[in-house]
């Protein structure tokens, strides 16, 4: 029950959620709800793992994972943007598709050992007492990328021109359309970005944080937690990152709870009966629900909310009666 270890592990596993959640934020801010994150993550996880195995390059694996997620998400894009199908069901079908593809194409990958993304420590920074070892030592390169990606994404969304266009498309696509912005184009683009990031998140699992392929257990619901995080984060990438890290730490904390015989001076019930551990395993999911309740109440109070056009197909020149 070492605080340093919990924080360190939290940053690592949180990075997975960070990528997936920020990807979904991009898509949703453009107005497209993509519930296929879990499927795209699993597909990315498998694609990255298998590519690294056959080519020996983890980086190439990462690239392929991102492409896989991106291409799969384009199917969702086509169906929801051009065919205006229901976005919820389309996203679900993507989960089945991604999962199915990953399981079929991933036959026989269990137990293999591909090249992984390197783990490094940053000189100087890692020497800082306490904070150093937690933040800057012995982390996968992807974790460090995550540190920079979150603030960069936030800046992009709120303070740059393309970010403004993104937000306009998600809030009031007709306004964007009449000013010459391609609503369809923007939506396809960010759906693709969301898919790529989901794929990246998956590869982060198998090639960095929890190496190995465990079939459908590889992602075990993290894609869904990421979707919940988006709401909790109120569509703000920095908050999503924070939420992701928090979840990661809570996960580790829960894991560690089962170890010691004495917990804060009292007999540890988990030590006595390891089956109580099942209740702990429930916790990430219970916490997601709590985070959602909290997020929904905060949104109602501040009159914030999702991008106004989220989930609504855009049809040019729809004439009201």
């Amino acid at each position, binding site marked *: 029950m070492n605080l340093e270890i919990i924080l360190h592990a939290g940053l690592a596993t949180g990075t997975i959620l960070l990528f997936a959640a920020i990807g979904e934020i991009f898509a949703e801010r453009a107005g497209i709800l993509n519930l296929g994150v879990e499927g795209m993550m699993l597909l990315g996880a498998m694609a990255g793992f298998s590519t690294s195995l056959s080519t020996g390059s983890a980086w190439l694996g990462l690239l392929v994972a991102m492409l896989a997620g991106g291409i799969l998400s384009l199917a969702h894009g086509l169906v929801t943007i051009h065919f205006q199908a229901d976005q919820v069901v389309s996203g679900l079908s993507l989960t089945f598709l991604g999962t199915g593809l990953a399981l079929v194409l991933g036959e026989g990958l269990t137990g293999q050992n591909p090249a992984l993304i390197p783990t490094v420590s940053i000189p100087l920074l890692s020497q800082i007492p306490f904070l150093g070892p937690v933040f800057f030592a012995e982390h996968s390169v992807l974790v460090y990328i995550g540190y920079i990606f979150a603030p960069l994404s936030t800046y992009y969304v709120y303070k740059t*021109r393309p970010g403004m*266009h993104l*937000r306009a498309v998600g809030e009031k696509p007709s*306004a964007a*359309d009449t*000013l*010459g*912005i391609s609503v369809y184009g923007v939506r396809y683009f960010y759906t693709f970005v969301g898919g790529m990031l989901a794929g990246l998140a998956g590869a982060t699992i198998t090639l960095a944080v929890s190496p190995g392929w465990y079939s459908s257990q590889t992602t075990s619901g993290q894609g869904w937690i990421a979707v919940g995080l988006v709401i909790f984060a109120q569509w703000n990438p920095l908050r999503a990152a924070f939420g992701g890290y928090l979840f990661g730490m809570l996960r580790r904390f829960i894991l560690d709870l089962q170890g010691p015989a004495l917990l804060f001076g009292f007999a540890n019930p988990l030590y006595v009966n390891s089956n109580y551990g099942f209740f702990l395993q429930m916790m990430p999911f219970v916490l997601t629900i709590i985070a959602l309740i909290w997020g929904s109440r905060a949104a109602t109070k501040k009159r914030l909310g999702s991008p*106004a056009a989220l989930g609504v197909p855009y049809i040019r020149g729809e004439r009201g009666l």
Partner: protein
Amino acid sequence: MTSSPPPHAVEMKDIVIRFPGVLANDHVNLTLKHGEIHALLGENGAGKNTLMNALSGLYKPVAGTIKVHGETVSFNSPKDAIAKGIGMVHQHFMLVPTQTVTENILLGLNEPKFFMNLTKYDQKIRDLQDQFGLRVDPTANIWQLSVGEQQRVEILKVLYRGADILIMDEPTAVLAPQEIDDLMNTMHTMTEQGKSIIFISHKLHEVTTVADRLTVLRRGIATAEGISIEGLTGEKLAELMVGRKVIFSVQKKEQEPGDVVLDVRGVSAENNKGVKALNNLSLNVREGEILGIAGVAGNGQSELAEVITGLRACEGSILVNGEDVANQEPAKAIASGVAHVPEDRTGVGSAPNMSITENTIMKNYREAPIGSRWSINFTEARNHARELKEAYDILAPNVRTMARKLSGGNLQKVILAREITTQPKLMVAMQPTRGLDVGAIESIQRLLLAQRETGTAILLISEELDELLTLSDRIAVLYEGKVMGIVDAKDADINEIGLMMTGQRSNA
């Protein structure tokens, strides 16, 4: 280029635009001279919006040519039109509510390139405002602005892009009489500075005060092309718009109102932004009378309709025949005999993917013979719907047709039929004829008057002052959630009403 006359600002020739099932523009011609204000007139559905959408680059005509300043152009998107100096000021504002004025104006442009450092642009926009007399705070978020201010932002948007040809779509729909005068002045300022304006409207009298020439569309065909305002009468214009001699023939019968049915006392309520929309408001409506509610959009009309029908919380009391319906669920108001013809036909008043039958039974599906204890007898329901279809002259293939396939007028008839069938004591009708063509407007107005004759109390909220004057017995003017004054429709003075609408006079 010296001997021939300068080219017209815009020349549209033989424009044909088709939609599935509808020929929206049938070989229409329109010419806009440099520096003029040209009115495009026609009732709703005549094709004027479609024509202008083609000019602004939203649609591509199937046939015909468009010339701008003598140059033939072909627009593939609004961006192309903007590049040629054409700017559209939409009736339904194309503004992003969560972003600021400056951000909305800069949307879609190429600068600032990447990083949004806006203070420089705030100043540029302030300068532009001074040039044309359009004051609004560039750093305010759109949702914080009044409707009139939002319209100014729409105009600034096109001016900022260097538009010298402006298309203004029903700009006066949301303005009070005095604000309309201000707008007309702004339009003259713009033409003096070299702009040319096309002004879309369906309001005859406005058009005659400000336009130089006009074009009239009826059912996709131009019945008058670029005729001068000189010597035109309202009747002649109406005939051009509708195609027959229009007798403004809706007659209201003289009758004495009965007891008070609706008694609103000291009601206050907030709007969706948390701002006070109704401010200690009181009024009453009697049996067999129509109380018209006049006012510029956004002064509490929607909220008034909603608190009476149970769709919004409030303080104070609202008595319907003695029953207090304030601050309770819609079911209570309905049970107390309140019928509601809502502002939003498709979004609130009907279920778009359900049939006419299913839409007509929304309020009475539990009553015999349609409903029994647990179930619904759809054969009876369909018969009932067929009777209503006949009685109200609703045009549709049959009663199984989905509501969203109906035209505005027919959908409104379905809604009215349904509400009238409940034999209400009070009917709240909000913007009942908005967006309808003249024939449908007449039908709806007749239906309302017929209801009045049966003794129903009617609260009529409308943005068309003419309509209120024609139909109402008394008119109450709303300003910032308060009743500024109540006048008898018979001897109403439009100027007085106008002053009350802008808060400058009160005889409450």
